[in-house]
C-alpha cells in the first residue's frame, strides 16, 4: 500500500464487513458516515477535542476523526448503531431517555460509546469517576447533571441484569 490514489479499504463495523474504494486520507468518521451511511457517529470539531465522533476500536473508545479508515483495517469497529436491538434500547440509552440526559442530542452518540466502555471497565462507579470519564466529551446543552444521573442509573441496572 503506497499510494495517494483510491484503494480498497475493508472494515469490520458492528460485525459486518464493508469494502469501499477510498483515498488513504479518508477519516474513519467520514468512512462511517459517507461511505457506509452510518450517520449515528457525529463529527463536531474534527480534531479530537469534542468527543462527538467517539466509536470503539477493538472494544475501546476512540475518536473516529483521528483515525484514517485505511489504518484501522483488521480492527473491530463498533458504532452507536450497534447498541440498541430492534426490540429495545440498550440499558444506557434507556436511562438517557428516562433521565432526560440529552437535549439537542449531537454529543449523545459519542457519550454513549464512552459510557458503554466505561461501565464495562468500572461497573460500580462513583459520581466523581463518572464525571472524570465524561471529561473529554463536550455537551453544551445539559450541564451534564442528567447525563451523570443516567449513567449512574444505567450502572445500577446493568449490575442487576448481571446478578
Amino acid at each position, binding site marked *: 500500500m503506497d499510494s495517494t490514489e483510491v484503494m480498497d479499504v475493508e472494515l469490520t463495523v458492528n460485525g459486518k464487513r464493508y469494502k469501499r474504494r477510498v483515498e488513504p486520507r479518508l477519516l474513519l468518521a467520514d468512512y462511517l458516515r459517507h461511505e457506509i451511511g452510518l450517520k449515528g457517529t457525529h463529527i463536531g470539531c474534527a480534531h479530537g477535542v469534542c468527543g462527538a465522533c467517539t466509536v470503539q476500536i477493538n472494544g475501546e473508545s476512540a475518536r473516529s476523526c*483521528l483515525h484514517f479508515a485505511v489504518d484501522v483495517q483488521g480492527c473491530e469497529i463498533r458504532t452507536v448503531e450497534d447498541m440498541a436491538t430492534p426490540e429495545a434500547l440498550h440499558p444506557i440509552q434507556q436511562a438517557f431517555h428516562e433521565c432526560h440526559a440529552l437535549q439537542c442530542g449531537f454529543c449523545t452518540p459519542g457519550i454513549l460509546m464512552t459510557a458503554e466502555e466505561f461501565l464495562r471497565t468500572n461497573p460500580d462507579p462513583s459520581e466523581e469517576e463518572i464525571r472524570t*470519564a465524561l471529561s*473529554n466529551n463536550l455537551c453544551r446543552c445539559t450541564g451534564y447533571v442528567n447525563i451523570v444521573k443516567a449513567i449512574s442509573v444505567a450502572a445500577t441496572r446493568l449490575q442487576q441484569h448481571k446478578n
Partner: protein
Amino acid sequence: MKPAKFEYHAPRSIEEAVALLDKYGEDARVLAGGQSLTPLLNFRILQPRALISINHCPELAYLEQCENELVCGALIRQAEAERSAMVRQHCPLLAAALPWVGGISNRNRGTVCGSLAHADPLAELTAVAVALDADFVIANKEGQRQVKAEAFFVSDLTTCVEPGEMLKEVRFPRSQNGERAAFVEVGNRWHGFAVVGVAAQFKFSDDGLCETARLAAIGVGSTPIRLSGAEEILVGTNAEGEVLREAGHMASQSVDPPGGFHADAAYRAQVLGTLVERAVEKALGKHPEHRRN
C-alpha cells in the same frame, strides 16, 4: 475536514519502517496513535508527502523490565501502560502521570513514545522522562543511537530525531524500593491542557530524610525543565515546612516561563512553586490535591 493528500505506507517491521523513512527523509511522518499528528493533518498545518504507519508492526508493542530499566516500545498505547502492574511497580512516576494525559479515548490509541516524540511543551510524559533521566532509543538505517531525555527535547514540537529516523523505545530507570512518586498539574479544565505541571520522585530514608529528589516541570519553558535547585534544597531534609517552601521558591526563581493566552509568565513561575510543594506532599501521601488555595 480533510487532510492534504499523502502516500500511505503500512510497513510490517521496524526495518521496513526505517527504510521508508530513509527514502522520504523530511517528507515523511510516523503515524502511531495519531492523537497529536492527525489534528495537525486535519488542519493542514502539516502536509507530509508520506505517512508511515507503525500500527501494523506488532513487534514494536513491547513493555519489558530489564535489570535496571522499564523498556517501552513505540507501539505501547498509553492506556495499556496505565493498566500495567509492571509500570505501577517499576515506574510509579509514569503510572502517576498517565491518567493526566488527555481522556481515556485518547489514551486508548495514543502511544507513550508518540507523545514523547511529538514533544508538545505541555505533554505530561515529557516531564516524567526528564525527571527520571530516561534513555531514548532512536532507530535509523545504520542501526540505532541512544540519547538522554534532556538531549532528546530540543524545543517545542522539536526533538533530536532527524529525518530518516524514528523513536523506537524509551527506557525508564526502574524505581528502587521505597521510592515515592507524584504528578501534579494545574489547568483550565479537568483533563484539558496543562498550564503548569510537575513530575516528582523521591527516596526517603527510614528516619524520614529525603535521600534523592527528582523534579521536572512542564509549562515553564519550550521543553520540560529539570528543577535541580529545588532538588538540592530538599535532599538531606525532611522536606517539610520552611524547607518545602524554600524549594518551591527556588523552583519559581529558577525558570523564565513564556507568557501565553491561558496564563502569564509571572503566574506560571508562581504556581510552579506551589506545585513543587504539592508534589512533595502528594508523594508522601498527604493528599494535597483536595486542598483549595
